[in-house]
Every structure is written in C-alpha cells, then in structure tokens.
C-alpha cells in the first residue's frame, strides 16, 4: 500500500512538473466558418478531461470572417483533442432544438464525427510534440 502510494506520488509529481520542463505550443486553426458573426467556443482536452466538464485550456474566439486561430502556450507534449461550437448568436450557450439536437455548428479535432454522441477520444486525439504543433479543423 505504501509502495503503491509512493509510486503514485512520484508519477503525479513527474506529470505536474512536465509542462514546465518541456513546454510546447499548439496553434489551432478553425476554417470553413459559415457565418461571420458570434464566437467560436473552443476547449482543449487531454484524455482525462475529454469526457468530463473541465478542459485543459480554452478560448473564446470572436468571428468576423470564415476562420479563426488560437495558440496555446506551455503545453506538456502529449495527446490532446479539441471540441468546439460556434455560438452564432453570442448567447453563451450551445443552442438546441426542442428535442435537444444542436442548432449551432460544432466540430472536433481531426474533423472527427460522432455516432449518436460526441466524437470519441481515439478519433479526435492528436499529438503535440516538443517542437510545437499546428492543427486545423474545418467546419462543415
């Protein structure tokens, strides 16, 4: 028990210090935005947070054309995924129809698609290396 706890503590320490030791940048480009208004609400997730409420990082990107872009600094190299929706009417919510289906555009990294739900982690994940990464999502 003690041994296990010690290993867990060491791992936790290693993970928490990793971003400082090996910081990396990620630029996310969002293209193909159909309406030049509102805000792209973007969340960056790792595997642990992908299906939960919180995100590793996030950005609210004002839309005045057909594309937006954001750079996240000081990320730990590893696997990440993006979930986003276009808050077209800027009400701060992802609007749905009376039966709960989204009425505002949404997308995932790798342009991954869901099947009766959000795209799965394995389909949306991509690697952020030590030298930085650019990832482009195309709305449709």
């Amino acid at each position, binding site marked *: 028990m003690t041994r296990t706890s010690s290993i867990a503590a060491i791992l936790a320490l290693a993970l928490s210090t990793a971003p400082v030791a090996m910081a990396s940048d990620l630029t996310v480009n969002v293209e193909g935005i159909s309406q030049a208004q509102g805000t792209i609400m973007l969340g960056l997730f790792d595997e642990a947070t992908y299906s939960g409420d919180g995100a590793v990082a996030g950005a609210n990107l004002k839309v005045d054309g057909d594309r937006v872009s954001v750079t996240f600094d000081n990320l730990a190299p590893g696997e990440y995924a993006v979930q986003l929706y276009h808050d077209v009417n800027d009400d701060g919510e992802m*609007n749905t*129809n*009376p*039966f709960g*289906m*989204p*009425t505002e555009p*949404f997308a995932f990294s790798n342009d991954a*698609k*869901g*099947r*009766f739900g959000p795209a799965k982690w394995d389909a949306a994940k991509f690697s952020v290396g030590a030298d930085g990464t650019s990832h482009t999502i195309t709305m449709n």
Partner: protein
Amino acid sequence: MDLSRRHFLEAGFTVGIAGAAGAGLMPACANEAREMPFWHLGYKTAPRNGFEPAAMRLAYGRAPVDLKGTLYRNGPAQMQYGDQFASHWFDGDGLIHRIGIEDGQAVHKARFVDTKKRREEQAEGAFLAPGFGSLGDERFSVEGPDDVNAANTSVLMVNGELLALWEAGSAFSMDADSLETNGPKTWRDDLKALPFLAHPKVEPDGRVWNLAVGGSRVGIYRIAAGGQLEDFGLVNIGRAAYIHDWTMTARHLIILVQPWINENLRPPVVAGFEWQPQHGLQMLIIDKDDFSNQRWAQAPARMFFHTGSAWEESDGTIKFDVVLYKEPVLGVNGGAAEIRGEWTGEHFAENGILSQVIIPPQGDATIVETDIVGEFPQVDPRFRGEHRNLVALASGSSDQRPGATGLTVHNWTSGASDSFVFGDDRMVEEFLFVPKSGGSTDADAWLIGTVLNLKARTSEVCVFDAARVSDGPVCIWQADYSWPLGFHGTWA
C-alpha cells in the same frame, strides 16, 4: 361496365406484349445474380442517376383535356448494392419522380435526393447508415437525424418549393423542375434538424399543418400558404407511440396514439417496438387556436399507417377515415423480405381495412369497418378537414404477390363502393384526387396514380373518373421502362 372493363383488359394485354417486345421478352431479372419472382420488379433498384426526361406513351384511352399539372412522387429506390440488400424497404434512398402532364402528353423524370446517407453509400457501394431496419456500419457518423435521413416517403409543395419528406428528420428542399437537391429545410433557426412528418395536412386555402415526433413529445408546425412558419408548439402524448400519420378537421388536430410503442429509438428502430394493446387506440384532440385546449378519446386497440381526412358534424362529432390493422404488420413482418424477392403470402390475411372512426363530443370512439382491403386512402384536397363523401384507396390483395390489385372509391354517405380490379399483373399504388375544372363535389374529380405493369415490365400513370371508377381507366400513359414502387405523392 363490363364491356369497358373487358376492352381495357384486352388493350392492356396488347400493351403488355408491345412493351415486353421492346424490352426483350426475357425471364424476370435474367441479368441478375439469381432469378427473382415476377413481382420483384417493384423492388428493383433504380439507375444511379435516376431517369432522364422521357415522354410516356399514351397506351390507352384519351387524356382529359383539363388535366394539366405535375404528379410528384417519392419512394425508396436503392434496395441493393451488389449482393447486399437493404435491411428494410423503409431504408431505401428516396427517388423523386416528376410526371408533367399537359396537352395530353406525359413526361417522366426522376432524381435521387442527395443526402449524406446516399452520398456515402454510393461512394462505398454498400449500405452504411443505421435506420428503421438497419443497425448500420460503425464507420458511418451520426451527428443528427439528417445524417440518416433517407428522404424517401412523400413530397409536399409549398409556395413553389418542393420538399422531399421523411419522418424522423428534416424535409429536404428540392428544385421543383430540375429535381436537384438544395438541402435540409430549416423552418426557423431554433427548429433546425427537428423532424417533419411525411404526412403534412394542407387546408383548402393552402395553410399547412404538420407534426414533429420525438418520443412522447410532439411538435406542431403551422405554415402559411406562402411558406412562412406561423406558429410552433409542443404537446405531450404520454407515450412514445409510432406516429407515421395523423388527421385534422377544420378546427382540430387529432393525434392517434396507437399502442405500438418504442421507448428506445435506437437502430434498428423496428426492433424496439412493442405492441401494448391494453392501452387501446388513444386520440388526442387539440384546438388549432390553442394547443393547450385538449381532450382525449379512446377506441379499441388498432395499428395504422394512414388516415384519409377528418371532419366535424354540427354537434362536434368527429369522423375520419383510416386504414386499420388488428395488430402491427408491415413494419415487423413485411418490408424486408420483399426486397430480397422473398414473399410467401404468409401475412396475406393481415391486410388493412378501410374504416371510419367516430368520436362523439363525449365518451369513447367507435370504429365502423368496411369490407374494403386497401391502403393509401386519399380525399379531394378541396374538402380536407371538411365534410365530404368520398375516399379513394389502392385496394385488394393477391395470393400471388405483395401489393394492391385495384382502385376503390368508397362513399361514406351512401355506403356504396365502386372498384376497378387490375388483377395480379398490375401493382397499384396511391391515387390522388385532382379536381375537375368547374366541378363542385368530390365526385367531380380525376383520380391519378401509378401502376406497375408486371406483364409489360413498365411503369404506368393511370387516370380514372372518380365518379365512375368501375368503368376502368380514362387513360394510361406507359413508360418505356419501370421504376420501383413508391409511397406517396402530390399533385401540383
């Protein structure tokens, strides 16, 4: 009338030989991997690009001089990829037919609705999408109902815009002339991707009412004749009943909550239905001017697909025509085997019966059954929601093949029926009322519909006089080819 009928049948036989000669009098589906029964022509996949415009030949009779307009029809027309058959007839891609009629000439063309389902399945050469009878391929993404929309059930024309209808997703907007697909129809931004049933109800002045069904919650659309959404509301019907059709009087909407329940709408959808006859056939009657003003009526348990239309007597009694089944049929037992060329007639006895439901101002409803077996009941569009006499339907059944054999017009006022039987060689589809110019009653109408001539192996458009159906067709236009059986149409 026997003389006319014999004359028609003889002429029809001649037409059959002539047509068959042109096509080569070969065994059924000789070019296919295995021999199919003669009637399988009705379930044969249409060409990938549909049908280019082609004049149909006036094969019998004389075309009414006042018959001018367009018959649009929709139906599943992709039933096979290689050796793979669609899991259910209801899951075939919608093929929109346009049959323009003017100066005695009829010209047919058809195009598939360009859906995500069709695009991806055509590219793969395989069925991929989940659906009514299909589990679907895991690779096929589904982010909303329109990703699996087959757009294959009916058509609606609103202010010049042609809509291809399904029931679990959006209507698809089409160009009424070219039949090119514009895309899913959004009536209002907050209603994007909301289902739009394939049986909208059109008032005589052109206002359209329709439902969005999502389990026990039902949305109500009210659309002006000009195409603008005027109102939308939600009601709760208590349980997730299968709702393919409904009915309407001038003052009330009537939602039939049949005891065929599916609380888990996961593919294949048909597998989730449960027949719960203890609930009976319940009907929610909703005031068109105030959706919260509702009352319930109850009838014995029945299953149904299609109503005709409804009206109200002066004391508030509601009457409507509907084809009723004692228990679920087509969705469960049929609709899958036929497209594989398998049909035993096992469910021959489970045909729908033309019936009238009478809902008194208070108390339980009663069901009046006729002795007419049939489907696709239709009424004169001038009398939708109003009192009228006639209902027409594809009628009869065969022990040789699936599908109807004739056309019947029933008069609710006199109790008389008038029928024409084509026989085993022609599969009869839905017939629509087209008012004659200058007429004032629903007997002053033509009935126009499609028939698949299994002998000539061609599709035909037939016209009857609604007042004299047993005289036989007034005229028949025959294509040089056949197209698969469809579901519903509209005249515009």
